[in-house]
């Protein structure tokens, strides 16, 4: 690290975390780069392991109830399904992004390969509903043989993610959910001692339907969980009036999730103590890992902390820097806020077969 970079890191650890996590390779099921970056960021914090789905798991033993803190670490990807005779490659999408949003994105592969997402727009306006995934292809700039060698069927890429600052906002394709992962690491750095027996899962395959969060939560069998994830707002799908820059959201309801009353109380209490203004997330469509964690095992009281974000119509997401900082404040405060006693305490022992 150069002296300048070190000074910058001291000045704002969150910026340094974003800079290391955002560009890291990590589409669903291939989270190799981001896992390595997180391992680096978590060094010295406790034992770190990887499980069958690719989740990264950190345990910080402590007295108090077993708390699971979850942040997804993958980013939407593409997978090569077929090579064409002209050296282009047909692709399918891995994760919840519409095909239109990827047009023009540069896609990077783990070996350093790069290709451009292209689409032949019909001149008759027949694609008013937007292109389907099967009509996208990668321009490789190579002939068929070279392309087949460089991008064989099954190659997985992700949109090239540079971190960029636009005024008060961060801009990058992988902010969902690298911003959430960065907020969690920053909160951990700030709170070496928590009120909990703390398990942190950086979840894999979130984009494919919260697969990592589901198995990760089952392995930890927590008494309480906090999920930190981006929520895209202002795209007409949410009924709430969430505004970027007005603070992190506490999730009340989204597809597959409804807040747990005790979790909600805890979040409000922590926000008040940390003097963090909060907004509420209410939406019918769109979901995070919170639903999967809430349903795992015999059910888990789960708090959803959602960082408001905006889509751009292209591959990028926008996040307000102040929201991100306040999310760190809120999560850090949550970690030291003991829960209200359970009305009917559950007797549970940790399950076998967790993270290995």
């Amino acid at each position: 690290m150069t002296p300048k970079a070190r000074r910058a890191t001291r000045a704002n650890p969150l910026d340094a975390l974003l800079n290391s996590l955002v560009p890291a390779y990590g589409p669903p099921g291939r989270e190799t780069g981001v896992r390595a970056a997180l391992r680096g960021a978590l060094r010295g914090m406790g034992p770190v392991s990887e499980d069958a789905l690719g989740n990264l798991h950190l345990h910080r033993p402590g007295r108090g109830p077993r708390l699971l803190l979850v942040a997804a670490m993958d980013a939407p990807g593409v997978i090569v399904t077929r090579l064409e005779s002209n050296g282009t490659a047909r692709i399918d999408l891995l994760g919840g992004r519409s095909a239109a949003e990827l047009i023009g994105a540069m896609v990077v592969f783990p070996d350093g390969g790069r290709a451009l997402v292209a689409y032949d727009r019909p001149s008759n306006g027949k694609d008013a509903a937007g292109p389907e995934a099967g009509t996208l292809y990668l321009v490789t700039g190579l002939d068929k043989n070279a392309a087949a060698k460089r991008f064989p069927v099954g190659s997985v890429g992700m949109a090239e993610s540079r971190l960029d600052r636009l005024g008060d906002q961060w801009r990058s394709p992988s902010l969902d959910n690298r911003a959430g992962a960065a907020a969690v690491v920053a909160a951990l750095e700030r709170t070496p001692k928590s009120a909990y027996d703390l398990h942190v899962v950086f979840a894999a395959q979130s984009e494919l339907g919260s697969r990592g969060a589901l198995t990760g939560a089952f392995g930890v069998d927590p008494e309480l969980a906090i999920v930190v994830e981006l929520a895209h707002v202002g795209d007409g799908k949410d009924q709430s009036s969430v505004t970027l820059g007005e603070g992190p959201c506490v999730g009340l309801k989204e597809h597959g999730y409804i807040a747990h009353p005790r979790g909600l109380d805890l979040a409000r209490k922590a926000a008040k103590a940390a003097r963090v203004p909060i907004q509420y997330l209410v939406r019918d469509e769109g979901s995070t890992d919170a639903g999967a964690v809430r349903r795992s095992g015999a059910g888990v009281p789960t708090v959803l902390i959602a960082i408001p974000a905006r889509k751009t119509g292209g591959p990028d997401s926008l996040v307000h820097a102040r929201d991100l900082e306040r999310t760190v404040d809120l999560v850090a405060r949550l970690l030291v806020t003991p829960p209200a006693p359970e009305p009917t305490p559950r007797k549970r022992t940790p399950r076998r077969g967790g993270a290995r």
Partner: protein
Amino acid sequence: MSRARTALRRGGAAPLFEERFLEAFSNADGPSGWEAPVRAKVVEAVRDAVDSLEVDAMGSLVARIAPAGGRARRGPHVMLCAHMDEVGFMVTAVEKDGRLRIRKVGGIDPRILMGQVFRVGTKGIRGVAGVLPAHLLSNNDMSKVVPIEELFLDIGASSRNEALQAVSLGDLVAFDTTYESWGSVRKGKAFDDRVGCAVLASLVQKRPPVPVTAVWAVQEEIGLRGAAAAARRVSPDLAIVLEGTASGEAPGASEGESQPRMGGGPTITIQDRSLMADARLTELLQKTAKARKIPTQWKRPGVGGTDAGRIALSGAGVPAAVVSVACRYIHAPAAYLDIRDPRRVVELVWHTLEALGKEWA
């Protein structure tokens, strides 16, 4: 040759693929939820080879088999899984004139049903998906596909009472197809996934190199249900699902587009709608195939879903992979496969089990 490569080539001979299992399983009927006739054939095939055999609450058949060389548990516990059920229909109503109304069980293309012969219920009563005579059809109707709700099965009964003496509401309906062979091609129904069932039954005829729990699962075609329940109980260290999958051969299309091909060797999944296959396990399958000179091909990513997706998400997560036989015309009255493919799948899976080290346990 590297040491790793040498290790991949060590070990005993794989068991042989038993074609008689494929024939018996294919000829048995077992639409989802009604797998008993198939299960009986599987029990017959594996009863004497395995250490324990039980039917779980869902109806899946679960067999445990300890590794060669004593009872001591060595190596990772592997779940091998194939599903017994097939797509078919269910009788939902009987009309006054004795015709049966049916609904789909699993995914079937309505274009392939008109005029087909079916077997209904446990007695295998024959029925024809009736067609109106041409002179009663308008030109417009001639070019239309009849939706399944409008289709009827004619079992030759002339009244509701007569029909109900032969069949009951809720009876399941299967294609009336008999196994046949010519050259290396085999024809039969429900190769998805009776070929997987036969591969699995063949694999357990010899004591495996690692502890294996073999699961012949139910209700795959209606939501991957049986394997999900079985995986929670078996709680394996890793899983390999054996499937019969759709070949991608399209007449007139380029070779690159027509993948995978019948006869092209075991088909390995990288990703489908249900699963990101475990990258290490898929790599081990590939390496084993290379060392054993077994040709392999990739399943086209993004297509379909298998029990592996559910097994992978069971408990705290299970590394899972899929090895398939590419069949033409699955989910239809008669499918084709190349008999060399299931033989190679048995070899590939067996030698992959041999190559599993302690790191998987």
